[in-house]
């Protein structure tokens, strides 16, 4: 649906939804917080990281953000906590930490 300036789909009122819930803005899926589906989140130890980019390449949700200095940062708004980044890291620089309320 058209986000029409809304940041989250959970903010859109019923009478501001495009008919047929047709999506008229590209990339609006990025407005959806999928991070709250997570049971654990990745923590990257930059001391071990060799900037190979495997985590960024393998993330199925494009939720690993490359930083200007060559390191990487998990995008916790979208990260579903699948742990693929931790599994593919050749230096075991990524640890999955259980979410605690």
């Amino acid at each position, binding site marked *: 649906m058209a986000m029409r300036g809304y940041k989250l*789909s959970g903010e859109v009122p019923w009478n501001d939804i495009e*008919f*047929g819930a047709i999506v008229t803005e590209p990339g609006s899926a990025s407005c959806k917080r999928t991070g709250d589906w997570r049971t654990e989140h990745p923590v990257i130890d930059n001391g071990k990281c060799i900037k190979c980019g495997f985590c960024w390449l393998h993330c199925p949700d494009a939720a690993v953000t490359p930083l200007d200095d060559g390191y990487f940062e998990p995008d916790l708004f979208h990260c579903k906590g699948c742990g693929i980044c931790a599994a593919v890291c050749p230096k075991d620089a990524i640890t999955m930490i259980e979410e605690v309320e």
Partner: protein
Amino acid sequence: MSKRVVLEASHAVAEAVKMADVDLVAAYPITPQTHIPERLAEMVAEGELDAAYVPVESEHSAMSCVLGSAAVGARSFTTTAGQGLELMHEALWIASSHRYPIVMAVCNRALSAPINIWCDHSDVMSCRDTGWIQVFCQNNQESFDMTLWAFRVAEDAAVHFPVMVNLDGFILSHVTEPLILPDQKEVDRFLPAYKYRLALDPDAPTSHGGFGLPDIYTEVKYAQERALRDSRTVLDKGWKEFADIFGRQYGAVETYRADGASTLLVTMGSLGETAKMVVDDKRAKGEAVGHLNIRLWRPFPFADFIEAVKGVKTLAVLDRCFSFGGPGGPVASELRSALYDVAPRPKVVSFIGGIGGREVDAEAFAYMIDRGNELALKGTDCLYEPLLVRGLETGTGVRG
């Protein structure tokens, strides 16, 4: 020039689809709808109709195909009956939820088992809540007219819902009657070229069929429900424009000799013709009897119905399908529900008959009037009364 022709309702529907100049027809033949796709395929093959004809491998594919063609803004038509409608079922929801103005003629047929190809309303009743606009026809002229009207209202920017035009299998689909075919110029005036604002287009990309999580699904469905109810204004406007151009007047709820009537026979579909004949007989004998035809089934015309039955004491309602384990005939229970908060309200007496092609004759309607009046007077704790079941004594009601 309009012309008077003799056609079965199936061919009348095909003529309407041709005059609507559809872009695509996708249909799978099934009795008693077969003559509609057959005739349309012939029209396309002979160059009478410039449209794509897709001979799909099932009804599920037929509906899926028109979902796609409607999404790119093509004027799309399909048609089915009975089991075919059931096979389409899940895709029907996509059509209404995506707000595609697809028109579908349904030649109403009983559902298996046992296999039965004849008329009743079991097929459409199981699609009651799919969000389609649903209308019923009483004769061949209406089958032509409602098909044309369906395109007009479905494509209105304030509606954008699919429309199901119901015509009774065999009783209409295969019966030849005289009707008037309008002039093409009149049709073009009534039904202008269609432009779909959000059509799939590489130059202006949109996505149809997104994901709706619990945080938005309720709002989407409420918007759809409100839009279907709000479409009524345009449905009426469509009938008004139809009357202005073609001279035939239709409405959501139609009454016949209902002035001063204390009893109304209520039907939906072709049996209205027989009911009106019985009303004439009863009126000739001085009985205050009329007929009420429900043309628009969804969105249900609550206000029109309540207004039409003011002062009426008995509504003898005929349903053409069972609602297994339910509150009686689907139409009768809808009317009971509509009247629950109305005072004074007529007594709704539910009859179920005309199942799987079983005839409902004038005698049966005369019985419904007399029995309806009797039950309204003395009261009944029965949900409904089945008509003419062998081995069941006449007048045996079914309790909850």
